[in-house]
């Protein structure tokens, strides 16, 4: 069935909340406003305000509360209105959620999902346009997921909710209205498995979240010139499925990584390092990264577009390897 990304997330949470009373949704305006991006449409009507909980604008407080509830055996889903606001809750995420299991010698668990949109939308300014996945991936004890399609969003969110660990689930404002085919009925997608989204022989492009759509668009354009790109979506950023990319690079010998986050210490740097360490001999050229610019996001659309990877830059990167 065709669903929007937004509807897919809604279905995933709804199915899981019907299955397990321990799951609740908490965040700013998730109940009666139905979520800032309407992801929790119909939830308070179905599950009631005990399980769909509006909070004051206190990310540290309610994220910490959710972590404590998870320590006590509940399965909270925290909606951050945007991932940018997660910075306010970073102490809770990094110092508590990620460490409690290890510090307690395995006595405590934090089965928790923190989800919300990351990356830029249009002209939201510097404080609302950040791609922070590399920060979260850097911290031991967290899993990080950034799905690009409605099908992946549904299957991976269900897995994230069932996971006994804290999971950062990064959506994108510009993906909420995108549509795609979603498998009928009950299904989950295991965490930590990449998917080849397009087969090709000449070059491998790795891209996640909304950059996947850009990579696929670039692959189509390149195909018209006779260049066949293989496009891989890691889907889960931590744990990272290196093997699927290595297998592809052994075939193509070339790799381009597309990411919206800042260049310096971005996730692509880690992916490249992992590839060099395991598949150096298969690479015909150095790995190319297409990334966001190392600047706070400007407001002006012209400048904003210049700060984010776009079609010409991806195509140029691919061609530079051929």
């Amino acid at each position: 069935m065709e669903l929007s990304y937004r509807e897919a997330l809604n279905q995933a949470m709804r199915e899981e909340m019907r299955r397990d009373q321990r799951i609740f949704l908490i965040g700013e305006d998730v109940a009666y406003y139905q979520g800032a991006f309407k992801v929790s449409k119909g939830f308070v009507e179905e599950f009631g305000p005990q399980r769909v909980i509006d909070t004051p604008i206190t990310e540290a407080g309610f994220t910490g509360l959710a972590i404590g509830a998870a320590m006590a055996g509940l399965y909270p889903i925290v909606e951050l209105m945007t991932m940018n606001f997660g910075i306010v809750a970073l102490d809770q995420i990094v110092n508590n959620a990620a460490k409690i299991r290890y510090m307690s010698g395995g006595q405590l668990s934090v089965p928790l999902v923190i989800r919300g949109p990351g990356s830029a939308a249009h002209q939201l300014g510097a404080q609302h346009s950040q791609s922070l996945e590399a920060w979260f991936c850097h911290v031991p004890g967290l899993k990080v997921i950034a799905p690009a399609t409605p099908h992946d969003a549904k299957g991976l969110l269900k897995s994230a909710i069932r996971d006994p660990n804290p999971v950062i689930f990064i959506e994108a404002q510009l993906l909420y209205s995108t549509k795609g085919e979603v498998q009928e009925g009950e299904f989950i997608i295991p965490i930590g498995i990449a998917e080849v989204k397009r087969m090709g022989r000449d070059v491998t492009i790795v891209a996640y979240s909304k950059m996947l759509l850009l990579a696929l668009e670039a692959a189509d354009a390149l195909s018209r010139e006779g260049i066949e790109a293989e496009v891989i979506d890691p889907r889960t950023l931590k744990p990272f499925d290196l093997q699927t990319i290595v297998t592809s690079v052994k075939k193509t010998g070339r790799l381009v990584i597309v990411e919206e986050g800042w260049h310096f210490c971005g996730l692509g740097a880690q992916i490249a390092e992992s590839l060099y360490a395991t598949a150096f001999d298969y690479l015909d050229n150095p790995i190319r990264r297409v990334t966001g610019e190392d600047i706070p996001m400007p407001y002006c659309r012209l400048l904003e577009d210049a700060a984010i990877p776009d079609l010409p830059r991806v195509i140029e990167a691919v061609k530079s390897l051929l």
Partner: protein
Amino acid sequence: MVDMDRADLLSLYRQMLLIRRFEEKSAEMYALAKIAGFLHLYIGEEAIAVGAIASLRPDDYVISAYRDHGHCLARGSDPGRVMAELFGKATGLCKGKGGSMHLVDLPHRFMGGYAIVGGHIPLATGLAFANKYRSLDLVTVCFFGEGALPSGQAHEAFNLAALWKLPIIFICENNRYGMGTPAERAIALYANVAETARSYGITAESVDGMDVLAVRTAMQRVVAEVRAGHGPWFIEATTYRFMGHSMADPAHGHYRTKEEVEEYRKRDPLLLLKNAMMTQKLADETDFKQLEREIGEIVRAAVQFAEDSAFPARSDLHADVLQE
């Protein structure tokens, strides 16, 4: 003192004595480099942990900050496993991965010590939230120092607890200093810290934190209120730490005088209870000598257990980062 029998009072004294002697021994072990890192002693503040926890059920939650040995021991944790954790041994409560500031004992519902000031207070509201969500009549007790009181996370937690009428008791152990900074230079309402909680609509009171019976009496009443679903409560327990902030800090340091420390030592919580019992002829020197022998043996055995235990294996390094 009415309605308290001799055995009951001796039991309170015994628990405070265990914390006192355990920590004196851990300071010795620190000097011998058996314990490293940060070691924050609770000496002088024992009446709060013992008096408060004595009024709880075994399935209530307790959570604390980094000065957590006393709360953990008062909750009933095995002193040997606590000492082994301080030694970094595999038999420690947290397999040597937590250390002094991060003791956790889940079977005793001791949900941990946390070392980012104010950061565990939201966690405490989450434990309380879970109990309310499940309609359980359990309470959560959250200990923190007055140094955490001005932190934003404390205020966010107070607001949430009051807003959602969570079954939680915030116990502010006001020992007058956040490390070396006195409360009057850190807290706008230093003269009446309970006012902070009242401003969120939380019922708040102050109690003499040197008097274990005063703490317990207050807590018995408060626990009943909170267990009955009458919302959160805040108790300021006034106290004093006889030792430095941590082992890196001498007993009085530059920020307070020797005389001030000596003055507070006259109100040592162990001394107060002992004197009261002696005056009322509920116990004599023989009883206290007997307790000293008994506790001395427990602490000696705890050190022996820690000494005899193995360190974790290198192969344990990556275990327990994630749950399978």
